[in-house]
Structure formats: structure tokens, C-alpha cells
């Protein structure tokens, strides 16, 4: 052993022992029982209805980008829920444990969580919300929408896509299992040196943290590579860069950030692991280590990461506003340039997370100015959205409400960000709940954009709309919750309340905390409204079926194919004439054309390798966390061997014949004809209508 391990270690089980299962914990033990019972019920239902083959064939082994995207979104929503429960616990502890006379239960002096447990809850909350809720939700949407918007049949690397999903799932599983086996990190979601060193955090919490993050980073990088390659190489004929839908541009800029910044995180984590596993001294105090170097490395990734999550959200807003304003997006080119500028500047500002390190006036000023520069392209975007709505024919449906809400939150978050970017102010409020309120405003922009997108794109993916009434109810409850929680939080920040308090010493803050607790109750109601929304919508789905263009005012290419999108996306690849192709076709009266002739197409096969590799990475992460060396070696070897086998075997894909396609397409058209408000389509010969080209020329011998 290179490092001293407090507690036992055995060759067979590593640090794992029965005592690591918190069966005496009054909160975790009942939860564990509930989870086990829930799992048994779900598995039992699947078996009872004989759905295992369906599940395996249609979902677990799929390489279809839409299904993978849906699974990303499901993981994201589940983790969002878990993160929300953490948030609820944090708020409840803080409203309870105020002042020396506050009561305490469950072994806690004040409130119901011991400091150690409270630390785990907020650390898990932060990590989960940013990396296992927001990130998978956004990656899921990019996965589903980008290929359809550029007129491709799948991602550039369908198998890699599945691999990225299952590695992300492994990360989610790893952080979930830390609830019941051992404990999680308790030093904040981004950790600090040297408290994460072995001497100060001897448990497995930090190790869980390392390997969870490492897996998410890996999965997201793979996904990023895939989206970049897809956008660059797989665009439909005629789709030049100037005609790319704006969400695709947003995804492109975001994934450039992902590809370039995630490696910095992986290096930082690798060095932390070297300290904890090999007894190195990268971030120790003394022995040549440097504490602040960790913070520096982390934020070199951390700040670009926050733009990685906000840029796709901006892209979503840029799709929703024009559709429900019945106008093209104002300032397309400036929008693209702004995304790229944000991506570029995001690399130059990371020190604003540690102005208080004390690098002095020159360094702080330079980074302060660089940070404020971000405000320029962001401002451009805000004005573009405002001008898109200006004199538009606005429809205030639920999707639009979420997008408008996102706009307001962006203003609040951006303004407070600007304040934080001024070192003189930052020295006052750094590490106060003011910062917490700032980044929650920002991350809520993302959450709002995501719920807007769920409503906006749901009919495309599933073929029916979600219920407007419950969607709006959820929106208003959620927004009320946001105001009730975060307005008092900004105020407390100004009063000097520091972040992450498990005991609030100042009884004068009680009333603010009460309001926030009430806010989180309202949030809980909105979560309830979301479940009702799903239930009601699925119950009434037959009534809410939609045709290809679900909103009637859509603009970009994804609205040209059927809803739900068939597995091949487009039977014949469309030819792109204009930037907002669907709007253009509608204007020119060629929105109802359909191809006259179908060619054979080539599609990728399903594979079970991806999910097995995902399972193995989970085992590897678990074994590394508990230092079960033999299991590490076995799972790592299995991963390598499996990858080599798969690489040599490759995937020849399979052919869907033209006749089969024709049959499926005709069925889809028949289904669409039954929906009241959709019009009939008629075939065009040679893919040409008038003097416009509707489809890729199918007279050429070139096959795809």
C-alpha cells in the first residue's frame, strides 16, 4: 500500500465491509427499503407483462439516436428529481437549525442532519444537478434533435453514441449507490485541496466523487465528439453552414467547449487520484504540493463547463421564440457569432471563481474585464430574442412561457454575474449565498429551457402533445417557487450569510429562511404537477395526436418528417433550399410533397456491447472506489478485450429496401391523414417541384 488506509482492507473486498452499509441511519435505512421494494415491483411488472425482450431489443441495445436521447433525458429527469430531494433536505435543515435554541433529532445537535451528512447532501446536490441532470438532459436533446435538424439518418458514430449513454448511466448509478454503500464526498461539489486528501477525508466519499466525475467526463466527451462529427460530416444535401438551424450551431459551439475542456477536468481528477491512491503530493500542503493549483485546474474546466450547459439552452430558446412568434429568428448571423464568441471567451475567465486567492490587482483586473466581455455576446442574444418577439404574432402556450421565463432569469443571473465579476464586490460576497443565488438563476435558465423543449419537441418524438393546462400549472408553480426561494437568498447573500451552513447562527435570518422553505414546498407542488402532466397527457394521447408539423408554425427541418419520427428519420433525404426549410416550403406551397420513389437505405445494427461496457465501467468505478484491486484488473481487462473484439468485428449494418420503406411511409401518411388538421400530401416526380428541389435527387446512382 502506498497510502495508509484507516479502517480495514482485505484482498477480497478491499475496504468494503458490512459496517459500510448505513442500516442504522434513520433516514437512509427506510429509504433503502423503499428503493428495494420499488425495484422489485418494477422488475416484477416487466416480467409479468413479458417486456424483457422488448426492453432489450428496442431500448437497451439500440443505437438509434432518438431512443438514446430519450434514455439520456430519462436519466436526467430521474437525477433532477434526486437532486431536488437533496435541495429539499438542505432547505429543511437550514430552516430548522437556526440559533442555539433550535431543536435537534437523529443524533444532530440542531436540525435533523449531522454536519457530515449535511455535507454529503449538498455536495451530491451540486454534482448531480450540474453533471448528472443538466448535462444528460441537454446531451439527450442534442442527440435527438441535431441529426433530424441536419437531415441525417443517425449520428456519425451510432455505437459510440450508445457507449456514451451507458457510461453516463454508470456514473449515475455510482453516485446513487453511494447513498447506501459507504458515503459520499462532504466537501462541496467541486471539492477543495487539501481537505480531499487522504488524511482529512479518509472515507470513500471523495473516491466516489472522483470516479463519478471521471465517468461523466468520459461519457460527455464521447458524446461531444459524436455530435461534432455528425454536424460536420452528415448534413443533408444543400445544407450549407449558413443554413444550419440555430440549435445545431448552439450544439456545435457547446461541444467544442466540451471537447476542449473536459480533458482538463480529467487531468485534475487524475492528479487527485494520484494523491489519494499513490501517495503523491500534487495538492497537499507542503512536500512540493500546491493547493491552489487544484482550484485553478478545476475551474479551467469548470467555467467552460457552465457555458457548455448554457449554450444548448440558448439554442433551445432560439428555436422556441421564432416558432411561437411566427417570425424568423432576428439576427441569425449575430446569434451564431455570439455563440462562438461565448465559447471562445469562456476560456479566458476562470480565475473569477477565485479572485480572493489574492493574485493581485493586475491579474484580477484582467480576468474581471474578460468576464464582463461575456456580457456583450450574451446581451446580443437577449436583444435578438426580444426583437424576434417584437411585432410577432405571439402564442403564449406553455413552451413559450418557459422560454420567456428563461429570458427573465437570464437577465437576473447575468446582472448578478456582472456584479460578481467586479473584484471589489466579489471580495464581499464570495462564498456567500449571493453566489449560490447567482448560479441558480443561471442554471434555472437551463431548467426552464429544458422544460420548454420537453413541451416543444415532445410531439415530434412521441407523436402527441402534452397537456397545456397542466403544463401551465406546473410553469406557474415552478416560477412561484423560484421567486420564493431565490429572492430571499439574494437578500441573505447581501446580509453576509455564507454558503453551506448546516447551522445558521443568526436568528434574524429566520423569516427569510421560512419564506424559502415555503418556496420549496411550492416547488414540490410543481413536481407533482409534472407527474400529473405526464399522466394526463399519456391518458389522453389519442386526442392530442399531431402530424409532421405539430405547431403549424414550425420552421426547421425536424418538422418535415413524421411524428413520431420513424427510425430512419427521412425515407428520402430532403434537399435544403433555405435556412428555415419548413417555413420556406410552407410559404412556397411545397410543404405537402412526398417522394415518388424510394431507394434502399443503409442503417446500423443494434449492439449489446455498449451496455455491457457501461456495466463494466460501473464495476471498475466501484472497485476503484473500494480499492478492490482484483476486480479493477478483471473489469479493466474485460473492457479492453471487448473493445478490441468489437473494433475488429465492426458493424456492416443492414439494408432497408425501398419497398419496405414505401410500405412504412404510406402507413405513416395514412395515419397522418386521420388527424383532423393535417393536409394531404402528394408525390412529386424526380424530387423537384416547380423550380425548387424537394428531395435529394434520386435519379443519381449514388447511394447513401
Amino acid at each position, binding site marked *: 500500500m502506498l497510502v495508509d488506509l484507516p479502517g480495514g482492507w482485505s484482498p477480497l473486498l478491499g475496504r468494503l465491509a458490512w459496517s459500510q452499509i448505513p442500516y442504522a441511519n434513520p433516514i437512509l435505512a427506510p429509504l433503502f427499503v423503499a428503493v428495494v421494494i420499488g425495484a422489485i415491483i418494477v422488475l416484477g411488472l416487466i416480467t409479468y407483462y413479458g417486456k424483457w425482450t422488448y426492453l432489450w431489443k428496442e431500448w437497451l441495445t439500440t443505437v438509434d439516436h432518438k431512443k438514446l436521447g430519450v434514455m439520456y433525458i430519462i436519466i436526467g429527469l430521474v437525477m433532477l428529481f434526486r437532486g431536488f430531494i437533496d435541495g429539499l433536505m438542505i432547505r429543511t435543515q437550514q430552516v430548522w437549525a437556526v440559533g442555539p435554541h433550535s431543536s435537534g433529532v437523529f443524533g444532530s445537535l440542531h436540525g435533523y442532519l449531522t454536519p457530515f451528512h449535511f455535507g454529503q447532501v449538498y455536495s451530491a446536490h451540486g454534482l448531480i444537478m450540474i453533471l448528472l441532470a443538466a448535462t444528460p438532459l441537454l446531451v439527450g436533446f442534442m442527440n435527438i434533435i441535431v441529426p433530424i435538424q441536419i437531415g441525417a*439518418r*443517425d449520428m456519425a458514430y451510432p455505437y459510440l453514441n450508445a457507449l456514451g449513454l451507458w457510461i453516463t448511466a454508470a456514473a449515475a448509478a455510482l453516485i446513487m449507490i453511494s447513498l447506501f454503500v459507504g458515503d459520499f464526498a462532504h466537501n462541496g461539489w467541486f471539492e477543495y485541496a487539501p481537505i480531499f486528501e487522504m488524511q482529512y477525508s479518509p472515507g470513500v466519499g471523495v473516491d466516489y466523487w472522483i470516479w463519478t466525475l471521471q465517468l461523466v467526463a468520459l461519457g460527455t466527451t464521447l458524446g461531444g465528439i459524436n455530435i461534432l462529427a455528425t454536424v460536420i460530416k452528415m448534413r443533408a444535401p444543400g445544407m450549407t453552414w449558413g443554413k444550419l438551424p440555430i440549435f445545431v450551431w448552439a450544439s456545435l459551439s457547446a461541444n*467544442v467547449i466540451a471537447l*476542449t475542456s473536459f480533458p*482538463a477536468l480529467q487531468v485534475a481528477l487524475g492528479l487527485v487520484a494520484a494523491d489519494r491512491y499513490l501517495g503523491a503530493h500534487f495538492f497537499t*500542503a*507542503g*512536500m*512540493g*504540493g*500546491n*493547493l*491552489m*493549483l487544484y482550484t*485553478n485546474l478545476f475551474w*479551467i474546466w469548470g467555467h467552460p463547463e457552465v457555458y457548455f450547459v448554457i449554450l444548448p439552452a440558448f439554442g433551445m430558446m432560439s428555436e422556441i421564440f421564432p416558432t411561437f412568434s411566427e417570425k424568423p429568428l432576428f439576427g441569425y448571423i449575430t446569434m451564431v457569432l455570439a455563440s462562438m464568441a461565448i465559447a471562445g471567451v469562456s*476560456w*479566458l475567465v476562470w*480565475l473569477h471563481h477565485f479572485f480572493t*486567492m*489574492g*493574485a*493581485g490587482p*493586475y*491579474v484580477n483586473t484582467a480576468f474581471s474585464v474578460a468576464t464582463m466581455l461575456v456580457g456583450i455576446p450574451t446581451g446580443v442574444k437577449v436583444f435578438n430574442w426580444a426583437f424576434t418577439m417584437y411585432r410577432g404574432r405571439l402564442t403564449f402556450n406553455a413552451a413559450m412561457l418557459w422560454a420567456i421565463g428563461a429570458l427573465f432569469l437570464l437577465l437576473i443571473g447575468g446582472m448578478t454575474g456582472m456584479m460578481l465579476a467586479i473584484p471589489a464586490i466579489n471580495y464581499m460576497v464570495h462564498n456567500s449565498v449571493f453566489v449560490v443565488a447567482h448560479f441558480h438563476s443561471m442554471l434555472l435558465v437551463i431548467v426552464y429551457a429544458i422544460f420548454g423543449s420537453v413541451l416543444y419537441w415532445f410531439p415530434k418524438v412521441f407523436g402527441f402533445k402534452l397537456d397545456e393546462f397542466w403544463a401551465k400549472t406546473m410553469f406557474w408553480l415552478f416560477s412561484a417557487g423560484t421567486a420564493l426561494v431565490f429572492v430571499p437568498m439574494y437578500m441573505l447573500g447581501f446580509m453576509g450569510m455564507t454558503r453551506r451552513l448546516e447551522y445558521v447562527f443568526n436568528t434574524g435570518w429566520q423569516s427569510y429562511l421560512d419564506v424559502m422553505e415555503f418556496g420549496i414546498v411550492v416547488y414540490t407542488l410543481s413536481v407533482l404537477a409534472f407527474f400529473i402532466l405526464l399522466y394526463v397527457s399519456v391518458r389522453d394521447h389519442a386526442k392530442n395526436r399531431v402530424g409532421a408539423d405539430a405547431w403549424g408554425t414550425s420552421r426547421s427541418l425536424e418538422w418535415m418528417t413524421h411524428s413520431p419520427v420513424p427510425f430512419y428519420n427521412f425515407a428520402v433525404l430532403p434537399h435544403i433550399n433555405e435556412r428555415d426549410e419548413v417555413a420556406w416550403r410552407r410559404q412556397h406551397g411545397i410543404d405537402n410533397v412526398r417522394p415518388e420513389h424510394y431507394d434502399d437505405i*443503409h*442503417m*446500423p445494427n443494434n449492439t449489446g456491447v455498449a451496455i455491457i461496457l457501461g456495466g463494466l465501467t460501473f464495476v471498475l468505478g466501484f472497485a476503484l472506489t473500494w480499492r478492490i484491486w482484483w476486480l479493477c484488473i478483471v473489469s479493466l481487462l474485460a473492457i479492453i478485450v471487448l473493445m478490441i473484439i468489437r*473494433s475488429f468485428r*465492426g*458493424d*456492416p*449494418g443492414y439494408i432497408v429496401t425501398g419497398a419496405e420503406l414505401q410500405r412504412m411511409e404510406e402507413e405513416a401518411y395514412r395515419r397522418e391523414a386521420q388527424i383532423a388538421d393535417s393536409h394531404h400530401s402528394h408525390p412529386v416526380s424526380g424530387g423537384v417541384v416547380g423550380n425548387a428541389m424537394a428531395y435529394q435527387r434520386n435519379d443519381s446512382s449514388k447511394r*447513401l
Partner: protein
Amino acid sequence: MSHGAADPTMHPEVQLSTSKGYFLGFAISAFLMLVATFLVTSHSVPPFGLLMVISVCAGIAVIAQIYFLLHIDISEHNIWNTVALVLFIPLFLITIGLTWWMFSQLYLRTMDMSVMSSAMQPAVHASATPGMAAMPGMNAHTDSGN
């Protein structure tokens, strides 16, 4: 999904690679690593010189790996490698350059300069310096004893 892409061995990156290239890349990096390890463990060069020598070794190793293992060159059919390189170089300069700048400014303000210089010249005794010997980044002989 074009046909040639189905056979990975036909990709230009794979076509470019040879076992000789891989072994050479591996051997060069391994050799440089050994040299660096030897220099560090033997303390045969003064600290500042050590820093320089190791940096040079690392630089050569990076170039050898980029060339022999990753086959990144600036030829026409590897155009995307060039794009990646063009993206990488400014980012490299930004991260390393700005980090160097912020930390040199930080040390100016937080480090006892007599300790700093003693770290560079082992001849001066650390005990001659007041207080701050345990600051991050400070090390050398004060800690190396234990």
C-alpha cells in the same frame, strides 16, 4: 454511412500507422521518462536546472507522441488533425500562460522571497528564514526530511 467507412482498417489514420512507428514512439517516451526519473531521484542537478531539463524532456516526449502515436501531421488528408491543432495551440498557451502569470503574481504577494530564493539554491539554509516555510508551493529541504 458510406461503404468504405465500414472497414476501419481502411481509414487513413490506420493506414498511416506502422508497428515500427508505435515502438519508436513508445521507446522514445519511455527513455525520456527514465532520464527524468533518474535526474529527480539522484538530485544531480540544481532545482532550477532540473525544472528546465524536465521541461525539455517533456516537450520532446509530447512531440514524439503526437507524431509517432497520434500521427498528427499537417498533410492534406489529415485536415481535421490540423484543425484540432489550430484549436489546441491557443488553448494551450492560454491555460499554461495565464496560470503561470497568476501564480507568479500570487507568489510575489504570498511568498517570503528569501525562502523562494533558498528553494532555488540549496546552499542557503531554510532555518534562516522566518515563518512561512510551510506555504503551498514552498518545499525543498524543509519538508523533504520527513
